[in-house]
């Protein structure tokens, strides 16, 4: 079932039509019908009656269920399914500390969860800003990956030269460093297998006529700091205590995220880059804080990416209604804005001439409602956004919730086709 196949002319036509629908939306042109997207992770376990743990550790099961979901629901585009679920072996090989996952901190039928912690201390801003790569090597990697414990001894490279450079290599011979390098090499082999499985699945799905919505994921500079370095509350305190340093790091991060996101997008050969947006919602910070700390570096990052031919696709989590006028300030026809709880009709009114929209059938409805209620919710979005000119890519609010009854998932995609044109 997961072997490579040759794309038939019919599958190619289906692939091209699906992709064109999405690109028409991006380009603010009317597509032939309302496109649909699917983003799912552990819902595949529900579909197949397997445990979350099995999905995370068994590449073949994940691939089979991913294929079944696509054939059954027929979304126009889908997330890179394997990358988002079958990560158990690589997480284990790397001894990843920022997540707990089935068998590693949560039960076999629970999703993985991120551990919001302080992975960078407040006094380390200068060190990170001055030498981001050195900070990653000596501080960050050993903190977040057990496999990298020992990299604290990685030599401080800038300035090494001539015979000092030669002598500096002695650090790689220390027992801790040798042990770390061995573990990292083994982990890298698993990451390579993981990537190969992902590639094989994606190519097979493409041959069957199903394009991915994106391959690469990136992050806003503020969310990079808040989620992955200073922690959510640490960053909130930094807004007052380390304001200048935070702004300096956000500016720096915009630069290296631009470079890295362009490189990843090129390697993936996919123009759309996904940005889960965590700390922009109305209730998290004031408009003034948003316009000072959150938005400028993200806007600049999006502009840099757009200039490089990339289509940013931020998922604006929670309710971002008060941000709509601000986030409108980007070139038209270049982005997809995916909204979670923001009223889509209001988003269409403010942003309809600037961006394609994605979303947003409510997760509570998907998980606790009846199929006819799901149908009505899709119809509401089709009638009030797509058929009024909004370039809407229909999807759930933040992807298919893990607990969604299969009949509700079927109802959503069936309704999307029913009200699509």
């Amino acid at each position, binding site marked *: 079932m997961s072997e490579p196949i040759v794309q038939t002319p019919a599958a190619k036509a289906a692939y091209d039509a699906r992709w064109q629908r999405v690109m028409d939306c991006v380009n603010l042109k009317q597509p032939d019908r309302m496109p649909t997207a699917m983003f799912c992770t552990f819902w595949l376990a529900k579909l197949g009656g397997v445990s979350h743990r099995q999905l995370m550790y068994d590449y073949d099961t994940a691939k089979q269920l991913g294929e079944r979901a696509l054939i059954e629901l027929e979304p126009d585009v889908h997330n890179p399914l394997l990358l988002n679920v079958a990560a158990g072996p690589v997480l284990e090989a790397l001894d990843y500390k920022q997540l707990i996952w089935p068998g590693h901190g949560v039960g076999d039928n629970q999703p993985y969860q991120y551990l919001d912690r302080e992975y960078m201390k407040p006094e380390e801003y200068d060190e990170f800003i001055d030498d981001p790569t050195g900070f990653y090597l000596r501080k960050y990697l050993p903190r977040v990956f057990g496999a990298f414990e020992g990299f604290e001894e990685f030599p401080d490279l800038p300035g090494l030269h001539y015979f000092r450079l030669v002598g500096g290599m002695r650090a790689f011979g220390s027992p801790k460093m040798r042990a770390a390098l061995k573990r990292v090499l083994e982990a890298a082999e698993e990451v390579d297998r993981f990537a190969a499985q992902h590639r094989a699945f994606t190519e097979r799905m493409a041959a069957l006529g199903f394009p991915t919505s994106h391959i690469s994921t990136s992050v806003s500079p503020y969310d990079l700091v808040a989620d992955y370095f200073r922690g959510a509350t640490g960053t909130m305190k930094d807004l*007052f205590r380390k304001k200048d340093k935070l702004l300096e790091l956000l500016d720096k991060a915009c630069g290296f995220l631009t470079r890295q996101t362009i490189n990843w997008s090129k390697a993936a050969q996919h123009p759309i880059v996904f940005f889960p947006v965590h700390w922009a919602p109305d209730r998290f910070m004031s408009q003034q804080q948003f316009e000072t700390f959150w938005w400028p570096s993200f806007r600049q990052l999006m502009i840099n990416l757009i200039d490089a031919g990339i289509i940013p696709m931020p998922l604006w989590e*929670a309710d971002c209604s008060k941000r709509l006028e601000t986030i409108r300030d980007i070139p038209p026809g270049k982005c997809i804005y995916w909204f979670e709880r923001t009223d889509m009709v209001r988003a269409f009114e403010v942003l309809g001439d600037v961006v394609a929209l994605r979303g947003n059938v409510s997760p509570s409805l998907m998980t606790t409602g009846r199929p006819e209620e799901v149908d009505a919710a899709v119809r509401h979005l089709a009638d009030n956004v797509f058929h009024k000119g909004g370039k809407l890519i229909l999807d759930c609010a933040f992807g298919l919730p893990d607990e969604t009854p299969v009949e509700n998932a079927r109802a959503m995609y069936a309704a999307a086709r029913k009200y699509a044109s």
Partner: protein
Amino acid sequence: MADSKDDMTDQEKQLMEWLADMNEDDAVALARKMLLEEGANPMRVLEICRNAMDVVGKRFERGEYFLPELVLAGEMLETVGAIAKPLIKQAPGEEPKKLAKVLIGTVHGDLHDIGKNIVTFMLDINGFEVKDIGIDVPVKTFLAEIQQFDPDVVGLSGFLTLAFDSMKETIEAIEGAGLREKIKIMIGGGQVDEAVRSYTRADAFGTNAIDAVTLCKNWMGAAA
């Protein structure tokens, strides 16, 4: 004690203002000076801190302050409290009467706590006695804590969609144990809405800390 600004000295007014305005460095330095150099009554300083937190809470309710201010306010309160509390020699006077008892926790399977912590903070500064029993709280822990703490309100928090079922199970267990009659149950967090309230059979839901305070005040017959 410091019930209104009129009762305060200029120095006390300054402390309250700096605390309420997020001027952490000056506020903590002044509190330290008052307590350690000038021999100010630690109970009085803590009372001023509480008054400042009232101002912070009101600004949050009015949409002038957001999560960062609440987080910093909590930190300032903790810092000043750490200086003041060791200096309290006499038995503390009678604590102000609390409006009601609220037991709060994140339901099992879910590890998120930022929203819960903010609700706890807001309920506390609004006069409720709050017991926070943490994250990933098993059903049986909720039952044991309800029996022991005897709350008027139970708050179930959860960010993930899996929390819907955890909330439902917890509420069913509370009903099954015969504890539902005397308590009100509110739910909140990430995806919670009326559909989830109906599914879990909670009494009410809230999407933010102000909702939680309003619900509790209304249930207890206090002015919201």
